[in-house]
């Protein structure tokens, strides 16, 4: 494991992008940072600039307007960068699959490392997913 990847798992800074979601996943992500769930116990912090991001939390079915912006944001993130698809829309486009304005699924655009299913996933599921990912990286897989 490279030193960069090792440093990544110590304290993951996440950057959250909503590209055409209904807000529920976004609210549940923010809910992880509030007192009951408090994901900061695991060193995870929400940050405001993609330049500092270790992980991107992406929600929503990608539409025509958000796909090019999404690619640009990913290019700006320092590598290595973990991409997490949160919620059913980001995983499989959910019920918006046959919409005229929704394009290809997220994992055909970016390399996705972690899928968190649910509509919306509970904060517990998001926390479990992120901690599992950290363990997996530490094992060098």
């Amino acid at each position: 494991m490279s030193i960069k990847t090792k440093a990544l798992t110590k304290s993951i800074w996440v950057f959250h992008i909503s590209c055409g979601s209904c807000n529920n996943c976004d609210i549940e992500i923010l809910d992880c940072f509030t007192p009951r769930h408090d994901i900061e116990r695991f060193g995870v912090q929400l940050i405001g600039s993609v330049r500092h991001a270790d992980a991107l939390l992406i929600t929503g079915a990608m539409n025509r307007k958000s796909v090019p912006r999404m690619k640009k944001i990913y290019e700006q993130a320092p590598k290595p960068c973990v991409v997490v698809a949160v919620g059913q829309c980001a995983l499989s486009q959910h019920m918006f699959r046959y919409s005229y304005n929704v394009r290809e699924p997220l994992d055909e655009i970016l390399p996705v490392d972690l899928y968190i299913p649910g509509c919306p996933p509970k904060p517990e599921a998001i926390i479990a997913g992120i901690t599992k990912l950290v363990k997996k990286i530490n094992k060098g897989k």
Partner: protein
Amino acid sequence: MSHKVIVPIGPYHPLQEEPEFFQLYVDGEKVVDIDIIIGYNHRGIEKLAESKHYDQVPYLVERICGICSSSHPYAYVLSVEDLLGGESKVVPERALYIRTVIDELQRIHSHLLWLGLVGHFIGYNTVWMWAWKNREPVLDMFEMVTGNRNNYAMFKVGGVRRDIKDEDIPVLKKTLDEFTPAIDLFLGAIKDDPVIRGRLKGVGRLTRQQAIDWCVVGPTARASGIDIDIRRDEPYGAITRLDWNVIIEKEGDILAKTTARILELYECVRIIRQCLDKMPKGEIDSDVKDIPAGEGIGRVEAPRGECIHFVKSDGTNRPQRLKIRAPSFTNVASNKVGAVGGTISDAALTLAAVDPCYCCTERLAVIDKSTNKKIMNGWDLVRLCQEKTMQIKEGRL
């Protein structure tokens, strides 16, 4: 105006109801104009609805917005029931009460979410954490009744999908009792804390006449002294059988909007408690088979204001046309008067106050018009807003 500067805000932000894109035109510190560009969250829901049958559409419209995920299905089922002769004719009595309970619980969770965000914008993260901490019991109640924290899937044409169990009612009442002191806490904070008052009073004022001119709805209108509430003007659910008040504030500034929303929380708790007491026994679904041809309208007072759904039916099992008008669509436009004339540091707050909660994380930059150079980003704007609060706190302003 050679030194006019454009401040783009948006389009992506974690807490917006719809990703919106604001362009602030600033002259020094003053905001002189604002442009609002929407359409970043377009998923073609109205078109998708035409390909689904009447019982599938509630699941779809529920996902328009995660915060009002009971208002949209409610407005939709009301519009379909309008074709069948009205809600009170089709829906059993017990289902009406359950619908009102869900609708009011959602209003509580939405208002608390908004309150937390305002706290965050003015640099009081304590308010954010407390508001969201006290939102959790409300979500627990939802989980108990509907099985999910958000996206409740309770509404169907002719009734509701799940019953409230008798053994759940005492637990719900107890949770409501424990929740009421939290509202007192927030009301006390807004009334007594000089910094919060200083930060919110007189900011983003929308006068009564301006509110009428810009057709604002919901708490934004009621905070400007306009007496509208769809729950009273065109009653639905069990609301006519209950005792409650419409909250109206006069001033129209952000303090009035905040107070109006907090006082509304008390009314919500009152309504839910009465519903749980008065709820009759019986059926929860009338098992509607056929939808006749025609046109129907459903109006619901969502947490942000009036939400309208229009359904056109041709007698088949799919709607021929579904038209939706969400409350934020009218409220957002009122920023044109609310934010203009204020300072940049107040703009973040004013745009958020109508509750298409905006915060501008990633895609915001202040661009100097003459040189097209970025001089500020989204977090700088929130930081400016928070710094002003610090200055008031320390008595420098």
